């Protein structure tokens, strides 16, 4: 009897458990379903885009010309091309103007003044005249007294293709002088079935850094004039030569304060750089290197052309060889090649490729004696022994952010890089010493 009672109690407990389960499962499932229905309105995806909108601020060309003067020195935000003349380095501030740096002591360069030139990209100096582009126009600036700079002349519409910047066209009498910046958050629609959708919109301008100066040790100073390999201006004797994307222009600067356009030549397409060497102009384009003879300086005559696959290529030369760097770079440079081409130019009627050297992303280059400097993108500055063109040997790699251009002159290498302006003294490829750095600080 006792066993029967226990058995009955056990059965009753089991039955109750099963009954409770049967009630719990439907109730829970119902609760789940109710929650799903209630929350269904919350199941949506949204997106935002956070960026800066830049709106151009225009000034009349007359206002810009009236403001060509010695302004107080400014921080270097975005160093571009350089020109060395005497004891001065003229450093382009991309699209904004020119820094004038007293380099009497390369171990302690002094930022002396700034010239506001909207749209400025290229510079060249002869005597007391600084030539600088201002979008479509060429400015001739008197730099006799660095503290009292003035505009001497301007040549209108010398670079007609530069009448726009970043998609904004400029009327004939105005230029973009600055930008109004607005932080913006935009809501982006996510369409059904599209988890990620990007909607590009146009914004411009660069990041801004502050400048501080930093020095290392002591040495000599450059005395000659020189532009970098990335230049589109070149001065040979009494002529200023400039290249646009398709033309070579010759300007007589016998009167340095009044350049006179004397010749315009169509020379191809996608022309990029110009480098003078002795009585020749070496012109880099996306399809190859041209050599123009300056027997008649007013009328440069094309000699040989060395073709290559489409790429961006600055070029320099010495007595026997031309050195051309090819680099890839988004949609402008097309190719994936990143290399140095050494071309034998001893016989200009039949040039030939001597050798190709693989690099990372080379841009500007310069050579003094057997020391070859190449700005190799984020790989920094590379120093080569170029004694034997068939066996150019890397001797040193100097880290710096996105090295852009270099000028080697009087045993000083001046490098324009994203993180500053460097100066190195050198006596051989193995002996390269930092003199100073004008630091760009984020």
């Amino acid at each position, binding site marked *: 009897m006792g066993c029967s009672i226990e058995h009955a109690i056990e059965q009753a407990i089991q039955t109750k458990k099963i009954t409770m389960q049967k009630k719990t499962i439907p109730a829970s499932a119902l*609760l*789940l379903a109710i929650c799903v229905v209630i929350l269904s309105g919350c199941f949506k*995806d949204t997106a*935002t885009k956070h960026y800066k909108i830049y709106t151009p601020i225009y000034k009349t060309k007359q206002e810009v010309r009236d403001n060509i003067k010695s302004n107080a020195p400014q921080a270097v935000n975005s160093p571009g091309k350089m020109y060395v003349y005497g004891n001065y380095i003229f450093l382009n501030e991309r699209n904004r103007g020119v820094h004038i740096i007293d380099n009497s002591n390369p171990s302690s360069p002094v930022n002396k003044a700034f010239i506001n030139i909207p749209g400025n990209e290229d510079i060249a100096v002869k005597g007391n005249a600084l030539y600088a582009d201002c979008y479509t126009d060429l400015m001739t600036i008197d730099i006799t007294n660095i503290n009292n700079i003035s505009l001497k002349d301007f040549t209108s519409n010398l670079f007609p293709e530069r009448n726009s910047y970043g998609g904004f066209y400029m009327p004939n009498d105005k230029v973009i002088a600055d930008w109004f910046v607005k932080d913006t958050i935009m809501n982006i629609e996510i369409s059904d079935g599209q988890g990620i959708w990007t909607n590009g919109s146009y914004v411009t301008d660069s990041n801004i850094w502050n400048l501080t100066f930093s020095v290392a040790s002591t040495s000599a100073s450059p005395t000659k004039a020189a532009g970098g390999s990335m230049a589109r201006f070149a001065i040979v004797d009494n002529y200023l030569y400039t290249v646009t994307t398709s033309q070579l222009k010759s300007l007589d600067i016998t009167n340095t304060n009044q350049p006179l356009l004397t010749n315009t030549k169509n020379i191809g397409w996608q022309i990029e750089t110009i480098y003078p060497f002795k009585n020749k102009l070496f012109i880099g384009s996306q399809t190859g290197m041209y050599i123009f003879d300056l027997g008649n300086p007013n009328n440069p005559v094309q000699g040989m052309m060395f073709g290559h696959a489409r790429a961006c290529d600055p070029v320099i030369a010495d007595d026997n060889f031309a050195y051309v760097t090819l680099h890839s770079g988004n949609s402008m440079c097309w190719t994936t090649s990143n290399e140095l081409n050494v071309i034998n130019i001893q016989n200009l009627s039949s040039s030939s490729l001597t050798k190709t050297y693989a690099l990372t992303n080379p841009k500007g280059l310069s050579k003094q004696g057997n020391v070859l400097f190449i700005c190799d993108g*984020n790989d920094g500055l590379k120093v080569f022994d170029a004694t034997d063109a068939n066996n150019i040997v890397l001797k040193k790699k100097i880290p710096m952010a996105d090295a852009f251009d270099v000028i080697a002159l009087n045993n000083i290498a001046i490098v324009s890089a994203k993180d500053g302006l460097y100066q190195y003294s050198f006596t051989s490829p193995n002996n390269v010493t930092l003199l100073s750095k004008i630091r760009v600080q984020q």
Partner: protein
Amino acid sequence: MIPALCFAQQKTVIGYTNITEAGVLHGKSQTAFNVQTINGITFNQTSIGLGVGLDNYGYKSIPVFIDVRQKLGRGACKLLVYVDAGLNVPVRNNDLLPAKWDDGNEAYRLHTNFYGEAGIGINNKINRKLSLHLTAGFSYKHFSYTEHSQIWYSMPYLFSSRNATYGYYYRRLSVRLGLQF
């Protein structure tokens, strides 16, 4: 493995637990597969653990989160409520953009953001150690990346850099089947 501890006075049992779940995430953008595993401790009817998963919704990511669950009721079949909070770690995928531009500069940067979820479910005990559960909840993840672009304004070397940050806020229904031991 954390040994089970028995406190006779409080009748609290603390032990190791693992929850492994698989299911789907359904929202406006898509319906995507999801799997996750949580390791932690359980005491009474509560469990707390550290979870990691694979979330294929929108942009593939790995959620890493703290999971807290509470079973309610008595018997083998209980109501379950849970909440998760943690980080959404995106998995780098070059289908989004090339990793670097041709000049070697970084094209984009992914960011780690918030991940969270809350929901309810049914937990059904299969045997002394193992239980099966079905959950449904509201799942949220924030994905963002910054795109570094270059505008070429002068042939061919001079350009301006521009950055734009895109943020995606995904709000999904999650339905998962899981095992806990």
